[in-house]
């Protein structure tokens, strides 16, 4: 679009120059050629900028306050279950960890919510010091394999090295990202004051981008039975189960289109990140909060080692608002910028009155 606009201008210039040049060498007297195109000529002076500054101040401060209030209304709970501490429930699991162990190590982390969580509650897992944005890691995937391409399935991209083949079979899904899929299982129980443990229903679909799930990620076609489709391939070395066993209960959430997998495949921007794990949907009756205050227990199937690189694992519960998750930064930033603008406006006003007039007076005799 830009290019065409530019050409159009050029042609125009040439076109108008052509006939003129034939008649005489005298240039045409067009406004463009004589640099006299009509133009708006604004200048930035204290006078013109002042209203803008006050406007920004007046608009930003309320927005900031609104954002801050909304953000503060969002309930967020975070618990670290890595098990670094001797007394933490998962200490044993984190110590005894090895990839080869077949028996799962489980631990349960008790916690208390002081306030009720209303509406939909989102459950995240968070990792720290995990460089999902390392270059070698980011590129270690094969998007066409993940899109269901048959040839890539059997012959994945070179970028997947050294997670490309195992036992002379190609790995599906290949690459470092897929290989290091987060495989802790988190379950949530509400400890009723009467002592009974009530399982909280966690919804595991609807956590990935719709387009990712339906367009970008696709199982290789040809057969509804995924185990046959993935016959010729090998599972990633660190996985306990094959890709077609990720969620055998739901064919729409199995294989490459498993949402946990899709979420993991979207590499995080920073070494400390959180990823959506489950959604706790609000109760039908709307009367009781989704998560009433009280004691809870987080049951962890501890599979994912992070101690080796000083990592941390967290579980986060959060509600959301129109502006997303808890986000005090944006509100504070808006309030700060708004105030700064307002303050600058005042300063400029003073300067404008003091110096603006003086300059004008000095100019007039000139």
């Amino acid at each position: 679009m830009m290019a065409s606009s530019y050409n159009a201008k050029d042609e125009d210039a040439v076109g108008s120059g052509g006939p003129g040049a034939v008649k005489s060498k005298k240039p045409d007297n067009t406004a463009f050629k004589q640099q006299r195109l009509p133009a708006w000529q604004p200048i930035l002076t204290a006078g013109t900028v002042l209203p803008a500054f006050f406007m920004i101040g007046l608009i930003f401060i309320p927005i900031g306050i609104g954002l801050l209030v909304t953000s503060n209304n969002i309930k967020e709970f975070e618990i670290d279950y890595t098990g670094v501490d001797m007394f933490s429930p998962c200490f044993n699991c984190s110590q005894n960890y090895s990839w080869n162990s077949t028996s799962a190590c489980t631990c349960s982390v008790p916690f208390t919510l002081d306030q009720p969580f209303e509406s939909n509650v989102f459950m995240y897992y968070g990792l720290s010091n995990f460089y999902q944005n390392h270059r070698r890691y980011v590129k270690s995937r094969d998007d066409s394999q993940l899109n269901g391409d048959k040839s890539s399935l059997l012959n994945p991209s070179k970028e997947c090295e050294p997670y490309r083949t195992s036992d002379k079979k190609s790995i599906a899904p290949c690459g470092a990202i897929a290989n290091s899929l987060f495989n802790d299982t988190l379950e949530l129980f509400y400890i009723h004051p009467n002592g009974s443990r009530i399982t909280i229903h966690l919804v595991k679909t609807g956590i990935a981008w719709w387009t990712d799930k339906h367009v970008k990620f696709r199982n290789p076609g040809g057969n509804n039975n995924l185990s046959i489709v993935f016959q010729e391939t090998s599972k990633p070395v660190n996985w306990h189960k094959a890709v077609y066993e990720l969620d055998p209960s739901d064919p729409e959430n199995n294989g490459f289109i498993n949402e946990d997998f899709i979420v993991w495949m979207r590499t995080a921007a920073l070494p400390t990140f959180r990823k959506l794990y489950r959604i706790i949907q609000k109760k039908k009756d709307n009367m009781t909060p989704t998560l009433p205050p009280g004691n809870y227990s987080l049951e962890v199937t501890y599979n994912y080692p992070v101690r080796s690189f000083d990592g941390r694992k967290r579980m986060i519960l959060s509600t959301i608002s129109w502006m997303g998750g808890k986000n005090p930064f944006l509100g504070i930033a808006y309030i700060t910028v708004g105030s700064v603008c307002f303050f600058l406006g005042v300063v400029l006003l003073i300067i404008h009155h003091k110096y603006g007039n003086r300059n004008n007076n000095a100019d007039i005799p000139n």
Partner: protein
Amino acid sequence: MDLSSIRKLITRYCTGEESWVDSRTVYIGHKEPPPGTEAYIPQRFPDNRIVSSKYTFWNFIPKNLFEQFRRIANFYFLIIFLVQLIIDTPTSPTTSGLPLFFVITVTAIKQGYEDWIRHKADNAINQCPVHVIQHGKVVRKQSQKLRVGDIVQVKENETFPCDLILLSTSREDGTCFVTTASLDGESSHKTYYAVQDTKAFNTAEEVDTLHATIECEQPQPDLYKFVGRINIYLDRDEPIARPLGSENLLLRGATLKNTEYIHAVAIYTGMETKMALNYQSKSQKRSAVEKSMNAYLIVYLCILISKALINTVLKYAWQANPNRDEPWYNQKTETERQRHVLIRAFTDFLAFMVLFNYIIPVSMYVTVEMQKFLGSYFILWDDDMFDEELGEGPLVNTSDLNEELGQVEYVFTDKTGTLTENNMELRECCVDGHVYVPHAVCNGQILPGAAGMDMIDSSPGVDGKEREELFFRALCLCHTVQVKEEETVDGIKRGIHQGKSTSFYISSSPDEVALVEGMNRLGFTYLRLKDSHMEILNREDEMERFELLEVLNFDSVRRRMSVIVRSSSGEYYLFCKGADSSIFPRVVSGKVEQVRARVEHNAVEGLRTLCVAYKKLTHEEYEETCRLLNSAKLALHERDKKLAEAYDVIEKDFILLGATAVEDRLQDKAADTIESLHKAGMKVWVLTGDKMETAAATCYASRLFHRNTQILELTTKRTEEQSLHDVLFDLSRTVLRQHGSMTRDTFSGLSGDCQDYGLIIDGATLSAVLKPTQEGTSNGGNYKEIFLEICRNCSAVLCCRMAPLQKAQIVKLIKASKEHPITLAIGDGANDVSMILEAHVGIGIMGKEGRQAARNSDYAITKFKHLKKMLLVHGHYYYIRIAELVQYFFYKNVCFIFPQFLYQFFCGFSQQPLYDTAYLTLYNISFTSLPILLYSLMEQHINIDILKRDPTLYRDIAKNSLLRWPTFIYWTFLGIFDAVVFFFGAFFLFDNTTFTSNGQLMATNTQMMFGNWTFGTLVFTILVFTVTLKLALDTHYWTWINHFVIWGSLLFYVIFSLLWGGIIWPFLNYQRMYYVFMQMLSSGPAWLSIILLIIVSLLPDVVKKVLCRALWPTTTERIQRMRADRIFERVETNIHDSLLDGVQNTTEA
């Protein structure tokens, strides 16, 4: 041609000193001379092929690529590209390869096309038919097959195919007329002479029997110098030797006129002709802006290298922990592991270089070139600079120096033809103190006799009358004017009789034409030169014939010319005319005092004066003179020197006849222009060959000197009284005292008004000043420094009596002085070429003295007054435009790359790029390129009219003020600040909280996570908007084009991003951008943070601008403000009705 010349060189050096020949021997018609005269040394000469093209079909690609990659920038990009190809780098090679490929291809196509045109032109020239005489017959040959020694026949209106020695012509007197318009632009006909002893051989058969050899110097580029000798073997054994000079040499490129045919022998062919030797390209001039740009580039290169180094070092420090280097989830491949650590470190360093290399973008060079090229059209298109009379506008020979026009500090101008019209008219002549004014005489008709003459003194007696007529005859005879024969001879006669002679006299010197025309009005008409006889029509309409014996041509050293004629009564006369300083010392009698007084009076009036003298020669004296001249002319070596000596002997013991005064009017608005240049802070120097009084008068008239200017003289007259040393010290003391008081005065705001100094220096004193002092012990040591010190404090300097080379010397001197000021030289004649080539900016005036100056200049204009608009408006605009362009380019790339640098700290120094490949590639090519290009073409911070009206605005940009280091550092820090804002703004949104979209727009109502590509896209979006809006803030002149391009670019970015993320692109092996942009836009906080961060980034710059404007406004800003206020006021007053107020306002303005 190359090969043969190399071979020649080799043979020359290998065979030793004795066979080194600095002259060549040409055998006419390839006939060997009679045996015994000299050993026949066959010399090899190149054929007559002209090669102006650079490439052939086969070597185009390698040679052109080689040429292009010799440019340091291109080479740098090539290296980056190769590194990307070889090692595993973060960005794909296309990101740098594509732009580079584009640039290289476009340049190659352009150069290839130009070369193709040159090839066509070469072929046309090389294959055009030439008539060669072989065995007595005329044979047609292709021009390129012509050989040295061939006898060529050239017909009227044909161009000479190579450099030829004229043997014979169709005219009996052995002359021919030639125009050298295509060589040096002089359209006048010049006369060339055949060798006297061969002029009889004027048919093909006869010429073929000629037996002669020519010895001449090896080819050299000076068009007007040639020394040679012809040996003619007639029947006798002893050859006749005749001298050959430039009057016998017909140059390739010149055209034969008014002569039916000529026979001539080829002596220099092909690339050895003087025309080809003059082809040599001018040395490349580089502008001050380009120099600052290169300095900035080096700074950025250092930044780039240090960034890469820092990151490499940090990477290895960070990776010392093996769990960081290779955590379980991110293993290296086996080959990577086995690589040596040093190799890995080096590869990492290169990878970082590649990642950050966008900080020095290819596109900057392209944009700058395009800006210069397209921008130069505004000069060509300028209506104000178009000259109706000539039907021509300005010429731009190079667009590299556009912005230098806004930086000029010293203007060196020629006087004649530049400040003045070079439209000469004889104002008066003075014979023995009696003054004749032809104007009073001639108003259309010639009045017979002396009655109409306005005589100031009492009428002369009989003796006086005789002297007077002699004076007029002298002026009619002593010149090199030609009469152009346009119609039949009768027609011309009639033309002259009717007084319409103006169009018929042609000469290379306009003074001579003016004199001869003036004589015509005074009753003596020069008719023509026929058979070496000059014919004059005297007052009684009688034909007088004088035989022209010798012409002692004018040269700028002697500053006079003479002719020796024999009257019909057999008396020998030597008439001489020249500058007073060169005539008076040679005069023995005559009314010297009266004439001198009159000459001085006229000189003060600004008239060009010439003195006329004569002497009678006896026959013996004449013979002696002839002998002297001939021996000098025959000399092969140092002929010029010998000739000068001979002239010196001959031209003496004159009897003074009188003097003439020719007026050269000032050009239109010359004074106004000079005054504007002064106000703009430029120092104007006038360099002229004229005499001091005349030049000073012109300077007063053109307001270079004012009435209150104190004139300091540094002339021969003064240095005769005092030693140069004392004079210099005196002057410097005067000037410095003044300077001291001035600095005190500046506080009271009276600067500049107190005292102006003007310096007058003449050529002789100047060479004394510039001469390196022999004894280094003398305390004054370097006169140069003192001289420069004086000049610095003078607002105007006049250098008179300058030789052409001295003009260039002066320019060089000022250029090399310690402030390194930017110089501009303007002139119209061939004598200004050296100075035009020497100065930073050379401007030629398409005047009467040919086009040589215009062809060698960087810009050519038609009138001196156009200089004002050229500098004050165009130069000013180009400078501010390119200054912003350069600064902005660096700024936007700091903004672009610095976040990537910061990101390395958060991705384990793994060279992970922040932005997607498409964004990396297109950022400089399409998202941000057009707004700045159009800005740099359209921007006008102040209106044209105000710039013209107020030259002081030029001082605001003097000394490269917009590209000084503080400004550069400000822009760089602004860029870094913005980059930090983009990065950490996005960082806190991602890090501190869940930066999520609530997915309202999506079908599922969920909350989703953003990855690293969204992070990069967010930063990039803020970046593109900020950078474009920053330019919008800087734009003062919003035409629809600016609006279109700025908003269009932003729109294009959005549309492109939607498209880029909207489809699974089948040809890509990654789909990382899929829906990233849309998802980002569907998130409320993303919008909020984009707006916030853009405002935060722009805020400091706005505040800085407003504060600077309010507290320390520059003149430019004040004027902008005043203008804005005035518009505001005008609107107000219009509302309030009063028309009177409006009128008052405008008159105030």
